[in-house]
């Protein structure tokens, strides 16, 4: 809780950005994001784009898991639905890429509602397992519905084009992907200022109580699935334009675990958490890459250590955060912020 803020209306109390300091920081962040591509080399631009995609998807999962309390291990499959939709539309309809992205989101949302149906009967672990089942069935569809999905080979995607310019370099893609991701995050943050968002939170905290309070569980649970899958679908669509190839092996259960891990590590039920978590989990493996590079003169075959170490670190991060910092990185950030906010008046 910030001190020295007196709000006179609920609207002001709920505003995303409340003080001039926050406005200043936001402006700095926006300027930094806009300026970054001119300073970064191709590799870091690639990572920046990847982070944008992952942030979009993790934010979507956070809506479902962090805010509504429905655990899903199907985020990767929903992304695949979006990616395939984009690839198919791109090849067969040739609509502008923003339309394709939107359609990818809608298609994923439709599939999400379908997958969400078991959530009426089951929740918690059972639901998580149901989503695993659903993603395996979707995987089967991708692999065997050859006329639409291209079967085991998958599909290639033509570059997205904006005002007649094909977006082929990471530099160009950055200016499309990052704003879209930012917009999606903004949308999610605003969602929780509305009735729907508050209903989600009520369901998370105790769904039976929520029902007693007059929140139709069926509608809101499915809505949460739909919104979350929409995010995944759009993220998957961005992924398709980013990698320009979609195949059945592009999105596996590992991806779904990755996004859930990102949300956990970042902080469930926190928009900031989704952003930090996705960024952190995307960049940690790359940092390890540099770590391995640094020790390679001293250790034989250091290159072969990278992938196992990453696997260990990935698992260890999940465990450590759940055991020691269940609120995730967002909580740590809050703590740091509080410290500086009160400094030097608090020991």
């Amino acid at each position, binding site marked *: 809780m910030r001190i020295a803020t007196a709000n006179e209306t609920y609207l002001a109390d709920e505003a995303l950005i409340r003080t001039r300091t926050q406005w200043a920081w936001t402006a700095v962040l926006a300027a930094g994001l806009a300026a970054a591509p001119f300073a970064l080399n191709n590799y870091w631009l690639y990572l920046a784009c990847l982070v944008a995609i992952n942030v979009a998807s993790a934010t979507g999962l956070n809506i479902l898991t962090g805010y509504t309390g429905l655990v899903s291990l199907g985020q990767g499959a929903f992304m695949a639905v979006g990616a395939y939709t984009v690839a198919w539309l791109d090849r067969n309809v040739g609509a502008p890429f923003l339309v394709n992205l939107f359609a990818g989101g809608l298609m994923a949302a439709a599939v999400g509602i379908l997958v969400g149906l078991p959530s009426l009967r089951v929740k918690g672990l059972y639901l998580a397992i149901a989503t695993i089942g659903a993603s395996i069935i979707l995987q089967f569809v991708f692999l065997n519905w050859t006329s639409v999905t291209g079967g085991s080979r998958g599909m290639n995607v033509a570059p997205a084009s904006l005002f007649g310019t094909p977006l082929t370099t990471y530099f160009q893609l950055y200016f499309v992907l990052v704003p879209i991701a930012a917009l999606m995050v903004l949308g999610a943050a605003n969602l929780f200022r509305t009735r729907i968002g508050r209903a989600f939170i009520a369901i998370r905290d105790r769904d039976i109580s929520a029902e007693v309070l007059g929140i139709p569980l069926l509608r809101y649970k499915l809505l949460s699935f739909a919104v979350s899958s929409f995010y995944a679908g759009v993220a998957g669509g961005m992924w398709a334009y980013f990698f320009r190839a979609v195949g059945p092996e592009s999105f596996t259960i590992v991806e779904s675990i990755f996004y*859930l891990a990102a949300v956990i590590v970042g902080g469930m039920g926190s928009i900031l958490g989704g952003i930090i978590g996705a960024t952190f989990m995307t960049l940690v493996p790359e940092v390890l890459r540099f770590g391995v590079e640094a020790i390679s003169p001293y250790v034989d075959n250091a290159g072969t250590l990278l992938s196992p170490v990453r696997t260990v670190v990935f*698992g260890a991060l999940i465990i450590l955060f759940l055991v020691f910092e269940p609120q995730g990185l967002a909580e740590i950030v809050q703590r740091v912020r509080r410290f500086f906010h009160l400094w030097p008046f608090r020991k």
Partner: protein
Amino acid sequence: MSDLLFFVEVSLAGLGSGALLSLTALAFVLIYKATRVINLAVGEILMMGGYFFLAFAAGWGLSPWLAIPAAIAGGALIGAVVERGIIRRMLGESPISVFMVTVGLGSVLVGIVELVWGTDPRTLPDFMGTAPVFIGEAYVSRKIAISFAVAGLVIAVFLALFRFWRGGVALRATATDQAAAYSCGINVPGVFSLAWTIGCGTAAGAGVLLGSIGGIAPTMGAFGLSALVVVIVGGLDSVAGALVAGLAIGLVEAWTGTYLGGEYKLVFTFGILILMLMIRPYGLFGTKEIERL
């Protein structure tokens, strides 16, 4: 060869691999029954069992009959350490958090195996012999027949233990009502440790069997997912359910694999899973939980 004989052989093979699923499912059930944790790392513990066996039998040159118990002990040790070190700290956290901890644990174990043994698939030393087995006219793969016998025996032993052994009864008591079990003087934390130890030991044993059939690799933990379907279908807290559902899923997989094609196996298995979740989420033999405000 007649179609009927072929069908019988396919079914026998299905029952055989179903027995392996049952055995792995047993590990899930034991741990869930006592601690209400779905341990998704069972697949990886199973993999560890295979690698322990490789280390003891091929690395140290122990006879397989010493290496098997050693591998099981290794798996049990992991279970005990994990329970004491991580799971007990998570007492009272939401089941989802604990579930995710086991997902993380699985990843850590895979990484460790890759660091120690590398990522190449390995073959386990043969200890089952190669002479074919025939039941009447029907052929059964020897390894599958042995696995079936072992799995059947182990499950029978467990059923007996739950009935007659103090520890087994304590486990059942804990599963029914933790607080009541406490007040009866049952050492509930001890039961937790026991369940994890035995559960992971069972998984490791299943890993030795599985590894001797198809070889071992860091990716073999995926077998745990099929076993997860079995426990959901059979009921998360039912040993008999694990047995019945394991055999049933094994049969379904064998039939679909034979008459439709191998690519349909997984999709059928998980189709059953979702159907089951829609109709009877607590499984064929599981306990129905009633939620109250």
